[in-house]
């Protein structure tokens, strides 16, 4: 009797969810047809007729909307991958600094973490773009002649040109994610029992080699899951590119919606492209995870 009740209850719930969805979709089709925008994806093949400042592959305004969206997706991928790398470097360094006995390093890292974590990312991105890059006006910094020069046009590194929009987003995202990664690294190192520190010290190992040979290998299993979720956050946060005028997938989507009014279809495209980005990151981290587990045979 009771089993039947549970079954009926679940079926009723499922039916209720479907009915709700049906009502919403019905409303949607009515609203869309009133606006003359029946659900379809055929507009994707029409020429986009807007320019993109950055495109990793050849693109011109006469190319299709689909191609423009793909350029946006590639731009997202580009900034995410470079930021992942930079953020990891910053985060590991700051995380180690936060656990070190050196007062100055520890203090600097603590200040960095509190400032970055307690202010909105959007504000930080605007700061990087409008103050750090556009604020240079006509000045050009060349710390290393012929190798690195920084101006309001962006960064030139060994002939590689990074636009100011890309650079601002890159630094903003990396510095922001770095603060969170630093906390993950710190948590991982603190999760290794103090007995392990005492053990390698009593064996006469110096601090640095004890840290790299004894502590970090044991901290890695605790660090990697936190790192994965920070990487996913970074990917999601990269959509704030629109605030600094970098044409990532969200910004291109926004332009497309403004031009075509195809909000629903574009939204679906946005979700799918994010799904793919997420899959790439989680699978990549899964491979790294397996590699570290393989090197840690003691588990």
């Amino acid at each position, binding site marked *: 009797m009771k089993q039947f009740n*549970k079954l009926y*209850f*679940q*079926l009723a*719930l*499922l039916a209720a*969810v479907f009915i709700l969805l049906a009502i*919403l979709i019905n*409303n*949607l089709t*009515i*609203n*869309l047809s*009133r606006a003359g925008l029946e659900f379809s994806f055929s507009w994707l093949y029409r020429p986009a007729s807007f320019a993109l400042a950055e495109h990793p592959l050849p693109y011109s305004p006469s190319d299709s909307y689909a191609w423009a969206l793909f350029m946006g997706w590639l731009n997202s991928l580009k900034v995410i991958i470079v930021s992942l790398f930079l953020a990891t470097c910053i985060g590991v360094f700051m995380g180690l600094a936060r656990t070190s006995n050196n007062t*100055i390093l520890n203090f*600097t890292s603590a200040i960095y973490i*509190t*400032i970055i*974590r*307690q*202010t*909105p*990312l*959007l*504000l930080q991105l*605007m*700061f990087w773009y*409008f*103050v750090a890059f556009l*604020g240079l006006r006509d000045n050009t910094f060349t710390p290393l002649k012929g190798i690195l020069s920084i101006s309001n046009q962006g960064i030139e590194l060994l002939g590689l040109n990074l636009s100011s929009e890309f650079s601002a987003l890159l630094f903003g995202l990396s510095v922001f994610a770095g603060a969170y990664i630093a906390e993950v690294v710190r948590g991982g190192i603190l999760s290794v029992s103090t007995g392990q520190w005492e053990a390698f010290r009593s064996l006469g190992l110096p601090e640095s080699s004890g840290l790299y040979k004894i502590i970090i290998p044991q901290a890695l299993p605790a660090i990697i899951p936190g790192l994965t979720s920070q990487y*996913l956050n970074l990917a*999601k*946060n*990269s*959509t*704030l590119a*629109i*605030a600094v005028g970098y044409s990532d997938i*969200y910004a291109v989507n*926004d332009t497309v*919606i403004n031009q075509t009014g195809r*909000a*629903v279809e574009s*939204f679906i495209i*946005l*979700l799918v492209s*994010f*799904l793919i980005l*997420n899959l790439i990151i989680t699978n990549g981290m899964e491979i790294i995870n397996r590699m570290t587990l393989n090197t840690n045979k003691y588990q």
Partner: protein
Amino acid sequence: MPNKIIKSGLKLLENNIRDLFSNLLSLILRLCIISAIGLTFFYIFQWLAITANWKVVSSNVPLFAFGSFPSDQRWRPSLWIISLLFLSIFTLIGPNRKWLRRILPFAWISTIPIGIYLLSGGLGLLPVASRDWGGLSLTILLTGCSFLLSLPLGILLALGRQSKLLVIKHLSSLYIDSMRAVPLIAVLFFGQLLIPLFLPLGVEVDRVWRAVLAFTLFVSAYISEDIRGGLQAIPNTQIEAAETLGLNQFQITFFVLIPQALRIALPALANQAIGLFQNTSLMAILGLVELLGVGRSLLANPEFIGRYIEVYIWLASVYWLFCTFMAILARHIEQRMAIDKPNLVP
């Protein structure tokens, strides 16, 4: 024999000199770093005090606080913010009477409807349309409303994901996982542009409430995972003890599981609230004039053009102050719970 003494004496001297040099080197290095930090602070201070032009902030404080709220009605949001401030101070250092402590959560919850009433008016107060809400008061309203609505939804989703009923379990998981895979700005965009499309003709929801709805949908997925973590941390023996006493499933959930899960999840929930407070700034690029939105609109004003650094530093300080204050408040509450109950797992 004397040779030996001289040798060992020399060795001692050598050691001392080497120590002296390495000490000297590290001393010099340390002095360099400290003076570099000192110099940085000096320049920052010099810029803050002399070079910077704070007129953009000082002449616009009411705008930062209330947006374009009618100037003769500004006492309403002021009253609300001040009472919130008093309540927080009372929570931090107020007397530790048991009945006072019991009503504190209800006092906190009631600040939200009171805030909505003070902002929107009606019932004796002059009505103010939501497009005139703005600044810090809108930021706090967005945060408070969204979090208050997310909490029960998050608890339900967490329980749903733990449920033995497969339909409920999979529906909850689907919702939580897909919400967590999507960037917040996409959800907010959905709230602003797409929600009106899903509503029947003639039904309209104000854009502030659409934003609250979108934030709630987003944050509740994250909150539910924190609460699920809390639920999983409760030892199974607690459920056994409750079953032995004859409590039914609902009673066990309500009296034994949820209160303990909330306590365990408290630090994570506080982080969600702080994150939400910061993330309300995204509404600045989606058409609401909250704290960051005020800054943006001021920077577009020809009178203050180019005053980026002043505005951004000012906004960062306000955000930093509020977030740090929230963190302190949360740690305080957590610690007081810990005084009553040092270990949750007996």
